[in-house]
């Protein structure tokens, strides 16, 4: 039997995890000494509500290899195959723990650990596409091919309210945290080869940023029918406005909104928003 597994940073809504029977391992979020399992003890809405009230800046940690062993054993039986897709190895040590666990269990369960090179709903989209392929009865190799296809064709652009968070937690490359604050400039970020990098900057109000994010997306996917998910870190109103703009840019698009979860949100800071898009000529 083939299982699809991922971690909580895929930010997958419950309706999808249930629909596809996805297995999710939580990452940990800390407010000072208080440790919380993402998706089990803390959720997006609560996190962004608590964030401004907390004395501590949030910290995060990956599951240990032992937790992964327990996780895999919890649903897979000897002889099963697990396709375990996780957030970028450049952003977290989760992947390392998964690989260590896979090695420990190699005589029992076949565990294929895959670096999505993505995070949040970008990872989520890869996972859903894999699950969809599995549900349609595709073979192990066809599922892996599908994952590879989505990985290379996924378009991700986002911005953050303040680069300081990414910079503080070392999740961004050469960009200094103060970039363009004085002239009210916002960075346009993407994930490339698993790293967060800046591709542009935009001055002016958020409407201009929505437009720029959508323009960049359009440059990549053209007018192909696309699945578009708008992401936000506690900025639902902003996400809704962007959804309206997205409808104009992509009249044929299948557009939805999803929140960025606590662990990713701890790094992007509140106010981050962006989009994930997948053009799919195959479907």
């Amino acid at each position: 039997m083939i299982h699809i597994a991922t971690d909580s940073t895929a930010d997958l809504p419950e309706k999808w995890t249930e629909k596809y029977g996805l297995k999710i391992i939580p990452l940990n979020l800390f407010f000072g000494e208080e440790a919380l399992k993402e998706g089990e003890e803390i959720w997006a809405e609560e996190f962004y509500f608590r964030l401004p009230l907390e004395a501590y800046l949030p910290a995060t940690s990956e599951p240990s290899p032992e937790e992964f062993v327990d996780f895999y054993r919890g649903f897979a039986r000897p002889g099963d195959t697990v396709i375990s897709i996780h957030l970028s190895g450049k952003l977290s040590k989760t992947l390392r723990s998964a690989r260590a666990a896979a090695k420990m269990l190699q005589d029992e369960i076949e565990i294929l650990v895959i670096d999505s090179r993505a995070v949040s709903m970008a990872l989520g989209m890869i996972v859903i596409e894999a699950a969809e392929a599995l549900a349609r009865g595709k073979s192990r190799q066809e599922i892996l091919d599908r994952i590879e296809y989505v990985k290379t064709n996924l378009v991700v652009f986002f911005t953050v309210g303040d680069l300081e968070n990414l910079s503080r937690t070392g999740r961004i490359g050469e960009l200094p945290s103060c970039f363009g604050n004085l002239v009210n400039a916002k960075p346009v970020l993407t994930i490339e080869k698993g790293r967060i990098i800046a591709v542009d900057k935009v001055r002016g109000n958020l409407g201009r940023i929505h437009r720029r994010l959508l323009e960049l997306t359009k440059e990549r996917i053209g007018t192909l029918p696309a699945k578009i998910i708008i992401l936000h870190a506690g900025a639902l109103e902003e996400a809704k406005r962007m959804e309206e703009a997205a409808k104009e840019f992509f009249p044929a698009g299948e557009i939805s909104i999803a929140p960025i979860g606590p662990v990713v949100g701890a790094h992007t800071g509140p106010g981050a928003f962006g989009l994930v898009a997948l053009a799919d000529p195959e479907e």
Partner: protein
Amino acid sequence: MLWVYASDLQTRYANGEEHGLNLEFIEGPELKNLLAAGVECLNANKEEINDLNVFPVPDGDTGTNMVLTFQAALREVQQASDEVKDILERAARGSLMGARGNSGVIVSQFFRGFARAVGNAPRLGTLEIAKGIEGASKLAYQAIRKPVEGTILTIVREAAAKAQELQKKKLPLMDFLVQIYQHIVEVLEKTPEMLPILKQAGVVDAGGKGLCYFCQGFVEALKGENIRPLPKAEAPAPGLPAGVQSVVDYEIEDEHELDPDKIAYRYCTEFIIKGEKLAIEEIKKDLAPHGDSLIVIGDTQVAKVHIHTNNPGLVLDYMVRLGEMTAIQIDNMVEQSRERLAKLGMAANPAPAVKKKIGITAVVAGKGLQAIFRDLGADEIIEGGQTMNPSTEELYRAVSRIQAEQVIILPNNKNVIMAAGQVQALTETPVTVIPSRTIPQGISALMAYNAEAGIKKNREAMSKAIKSVITGEVTFAVRSSSFNGLEIREGDIIGLKEGDIISVGKNPSEVLLDLLKNFLKEKEDALITVYYGHDIEEKEANELEPMIQEAFPEAEVEIYEGGQPFYYYIVSVE
């Protein structure tokens, strides 16, 4: 003026009064004097040349830029031996380093072209001079992508052609030079016919006239009429002895060896000497064996001396006999460099610092704007732009300070672009000049800069970005003139769109609004960014936003303190 002078010169020459009559060659020592005389004549007429600037806006003036460039050449010439080759090469190097503004850059090309064409000639006769001017003209034309006729370029080309023609006639040197000079003065008078913008403003070309003044001084001195001693060529700053101002520059330039083991002479020794009959050349000769990095600048009354030596006592002992010393300073460079290395944390094992891939330097005036440029990622800011065009050397130093594998320069002023282009000649670090002509263009270029991308992508993106913004400026007219059908009085507030005067008024804020109305339709969804200058009160600036917002309800308005001098407002629309 020039005309009268030229014919006067020739009349007297024809009467056979002057000592230059039978001169066949110019030798090294005389060449130094002649260059100095040329620069002095230019300097004396600097203001007149400044007043020829076509646009009545406070900007780097042609006269000032040319004088500063020529003076930089002269400072180097003063260090030269008496060999013609050495003198010309030093003039070329000095003017290259000191080039300010576009006219300065062209002057530096002249010197370089002249020196190259003359080569190893031990003295300058008509043949060498004709070759030299030809070389000067060729190099200057090569250096400029789109040469414009009716400018200093036309003058030098005409000088070259005339020199070729006269050289074949085997004229005496004096006659030869006077006729070339006379010819370029005639050509100068015709520049308004070649360049409509000059005609409209009713002036001749400023750079061309500057060159004529230089030539006038040169020829005049050759006639023996007005020879002035070399050191005086440079106008001394008030309160400072002649040449000291320039020595201060040298001190900055004098980058002492960092590695203590490599310092051959330990004591950096410096002082000013006042005396009766100081012989600069003799002092140089006598001090030379005592160390290196020797600089002696001044005149017969006062001189500044700088030398690295192992025995400052001997130097002072020698000097004390010549006059009274002040401002004596002796530093142990070995000690200093150890301290400096320790401070840098590299005393034991000086590991090379990690170089940035791409560094950025920008020319910006005003505290607020400088902070904005830094915030957007500029590594080094060069003070200047509208007030003073930085020299090639200043740009080069900023490039060197960055310590990057590649450096991008944002000139942010049309009159700095060429000097920035010269920097590559001075450094091995690859330099890319993004030709930003205004501050908003520079800001847009920085917005498009991507630290993750390579130089090629960045050059493309930044060059494209500078075209995406419209720049407006509000300043005052430095003199009365008429332009684009607008009557402008000195002191009027003028509004410029992309460098063209399109609005005149009495109140900066009103002119700004008038200017914006020219850029924008009422309902346009644009981003208007205003950077207010040093002379605008915060209160006044705060009143701008509602005023602009009212006029353009669909636009987004942002107001920042720029702190720039002379320009009340710099505004961008994108």
